């Protein structure tokens, strides 16, 4: 049974319930599912956390993930990473879990909806000035928009908007197109080939989650100090 028809480009179009302007579609439902899974696993894993020398496997697993996130962040900010761990970690875990659960039949990744990716990118769009201002103050942050002179102000603003748009479309495009490709291949090729495509899809999903999180961090890091801006832009260009 297909939940999202092949000609429907987004799971947003599958509306389950509506009342006035409030709509409940498949995207929101699966978002809640992913959230529930993540929170449940988190609760399960951290309920018996110990700061002793001997810890459980679960705790080791989580600590490895958090350590990697923390390491990546501190590599970019060169400063305390703990402030950014919740935002970047949540982005990564949410996107990664959504993308991996695609292998479960009947599951539609919320990230294959442009509304979700736009919402996530908007959060990053807001987080960049938030962290920048809270670290350096409003004036210092705004001054960065007029560097090297005021002519560059519109380009800076356009840059901010376009990279948010890029974040949105990159994730949406990858996940949505993958689902469509698998759907089409299922119709025209034997069983084995779509399985390979699914495996590839898992890889793409994890990589996209990593890219989204890293880019978010790069953007935030670029707002934190002028010194690190060049470094951050270099990262952006390389990725683009």
């Amino acid at each position, binding site marked *: 049974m297909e939940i999202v028809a092949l000609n429907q480009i987004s799971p947003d179009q599958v509306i389950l319930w509506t009342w006035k302007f409030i709509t409940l579609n498949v995207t929101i439902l699966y978002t809640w599912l992913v959230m529930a899974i993540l929170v449940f696993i988190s609760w399960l894993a951290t309920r018996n956390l110990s700061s002793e020398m001997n810890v459980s496997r679960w705790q080791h697993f989580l600590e490895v993930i*958090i350590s990697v996130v923390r390491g990546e962040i501190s590599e970019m900010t060169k400063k305390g990473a703990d402030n950014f761990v919740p935002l970047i970690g949540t982005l990564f875990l949410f996107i990664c879990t959504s993308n991996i659960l695609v292998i479960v039949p009947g599951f539609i990744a919320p990230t294959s909806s442009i509304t979700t990716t736009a919402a996530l990118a908007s959060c990053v769009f807001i987080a960049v000035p938030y962290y920048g201002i809270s670290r350096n103050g409003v004036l210092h942050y705004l001054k960065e928009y007029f560097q090297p002179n005021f002519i560059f102000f519109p380009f800076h603003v356009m840059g901010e908007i376009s990279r948010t748009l890029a974040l949105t479309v990159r994730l949406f495009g990858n996940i949505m197109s993958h689902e469509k490709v698998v759907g089409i291949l299922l119709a025209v090729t034997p069983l084995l080939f779509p399985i390979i495509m699914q495996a590839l899809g898992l890889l793409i999903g994890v990589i996209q989650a990593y890219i989204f999180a890293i880019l978010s961090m790069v953007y935030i890091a670029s707002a934190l100090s002028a010194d690190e801006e060049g470094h951050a832009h270099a990262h952006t260009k390389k990725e683009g």
Partner: protein
Amino acid sequence: MHIDWFVFAAQIFNFLLLMYLLKRFLFGRILKAMDDREAKIAARFAEADALNEKAREAADLYEKRNLQVNEKIEQMLNEATLAAENRRKELMEQVRTDVEHVKARWQDMLKREQEAFFFDLRRRAAGSLYATARKALSDLADADLESRIIDEFVKRLGSLEEEKLAQIRKAVAAGGGRIAVQSAFEISAAQRTQIEKAVSEQIVRDATMRYLVEPDVVSGVELRVNGHKIAWSLNEYLETLVENLTETLQREAHAA
């Protein structure tokens, strides 16, 4: 591309909610646990360092004490050796003294035995000489030896010096006029008269005479007055003979 703005807002809310929940249930707790553990590990390292330091100090102290103990042992050993040496010398000295003592006692005993032997020898020699002389006198001169002894005794009384006589007279007066004559044989009446005559001539008249037979007085006569004595006996000759004999024997013993 259609974007449902309600869904967009709902997704932002969902994301923020998830962020809050994960921060509360996952990141906060894990970061805290990790930090706690790091702090704990650091504390353990610090503790280990402190213990290590302490152990090193203890080892140093132990080594120092060991050295001290060794020094002390050496010192005590030296002292003990010295004390033992002193004690050995003392003991040796004591043993030497003891040996000297034993030797002296032994020599003393030997001397006494020698003396006893010579005393015995003297007595036997005297007895033998007496018998021989007596037999010789009686054989040769046909005269009674005892009468010859009395004669000789009387002669000696007659030839006494005046000083000695004065002493004897004084002694006789102090002793109440009693004079004792001791001899190895019985003195006959004639001989007694001869003696009394000589006494009255030389010493004192009317003395009370007492005659005793005493075998110890070897072949002779003794006149005893209150501590003084006039005698003639073979003893003198025999003593000379014994002395000569002793000297000869000792010379022989030393030569050996």
